[in-house]
């Protein structure tokens, strides 16, 4: 049991951290592991164990957000009302700006970006975890990235080069 925990703790906590935020990530991750250990006997092997654990993580994180209050959720329609954070010369750390922008995304977009782009899972795996079609998954990813580009402002590529250059 402990081995399984150590094998998945970083990914589960990382996903929870990026979907629900730092303050609630530990609670959600604990809840996921409790569900994993209690449900392991009933796990029917319909999917890979990792897929099942990530599905539990995403579901637990999204349920947690729903419980925490719908006022913090931003629906698709509300996206246009979100102001893009101002791009300043001082704020050159693209990684931290990305984390901030990620937190401003609707939970569904956040989940697909975390699964596909951060965790590097395939569209097939993402679709299995999110229990949707692969086409839906791809379209959600496109919308999520487009929203992130809007939030991060123009010339992300230049900022990335600048960040990489300054860190070297």
């Amino acid at each position, binding site marked *: 049991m402990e081995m399984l925990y150590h094998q998945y703790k970083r990914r*589960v906590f990382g996903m929870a951290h990026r979907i629900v935020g730092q303050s609630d990530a530990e609670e959600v991750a*604990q809840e996921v592991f409790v569900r994993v250990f209690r449900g392991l006997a009933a796990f029917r092997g319909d999917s890979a164990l990792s897929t099942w654990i990530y599905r539990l993580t995403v579901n637990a994180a999204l349920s947690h957000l729903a419980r925490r209050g719908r006022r913090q959720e931003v629906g698709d329609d509300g996206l246009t009302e979100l102001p893009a954070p101002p791009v300043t010369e001082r704020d050159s750390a693209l990684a931290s700006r*990305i984390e901030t922008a990620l937190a401003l995304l609707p939970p569904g977009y956040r989940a697909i970006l975390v699964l596909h782009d951060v965790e590097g899972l395939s569209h097939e795996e993402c679709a299995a975890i999110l229990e949707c079609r692969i086409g839906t998954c791809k379209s959600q990813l496109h919308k999520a*990235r487009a929203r992130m580009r809007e939030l991060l402002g123009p010339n992300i590529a230049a900022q990335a080069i600048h960040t990489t250059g300054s860190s070297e």
Partner: protein
Amino acid sequence: MTTCETIQPRLTAYLDGDLDGERGSVVRGHLRECAACRQVARDEAALRDALRLAPPVDPPVSMWAGVQSKLAAAEVADARQPRWRRQVARWARWAPWPPTMPQYAAGAALAAAAVVMLYWRTQRVDELAPGPVAVAPIRTAPPHPIRTEAEQPAAVAPAADDVTADLLAEPARTTGSYRQVIEELMKLASDARTAWGDEQKVVFDAKLAVLRNGIDHAIQGRAQQRAQRALIRYLQLAVIRDDVMLAGGGAR
């Protein structure tokens, strides 16, 4: 003709390598000519790479202790739960909600089977309902050589709470009730017979023998019940109409 509006939605798939052959070539061709879309593609690729390089987040050391304590709390809650709730939880794990399409299909098939069974049972009850003769007052019959069905064993009534046994006993019960009707009609026929002429008696006896033979040789169950119904129809015509010659044609 490709435009920025048609190309930009495909950029995500293109950058992830999901567009091959002609579709990829079309996007590539557009990017060569369009600086704005090239910039969008560069930004999206940079964003994707930055997300991919996002540093892993280490969980706090206290997390494992929290998991263990939550597991312990859940087990205590399990122990306090009534048994039926544990059963329901076990069932819910076996049949997750919402049901999948095959589960919907199985449920629909079961419901359809139940409706068909109910309809069939209703139809059979209508079919088996005894005719007016069965409720006619029984008159005391004089001794007569005609053999009655009373000697045959009666159907055994099943336990009321045992539906399966009830269903299994249904054919025997029907045969038994037909037998009773035949017995009553035979008593009436004995009375009526005294008023018949010789020719009528011969026709009646011959027909009766044929019909009884049919019952005796029919396979138990529906075939036997059909033969019994034929005899009932014949006796009804013979007794009620008191016309054996006519009844001879009625026993089909």
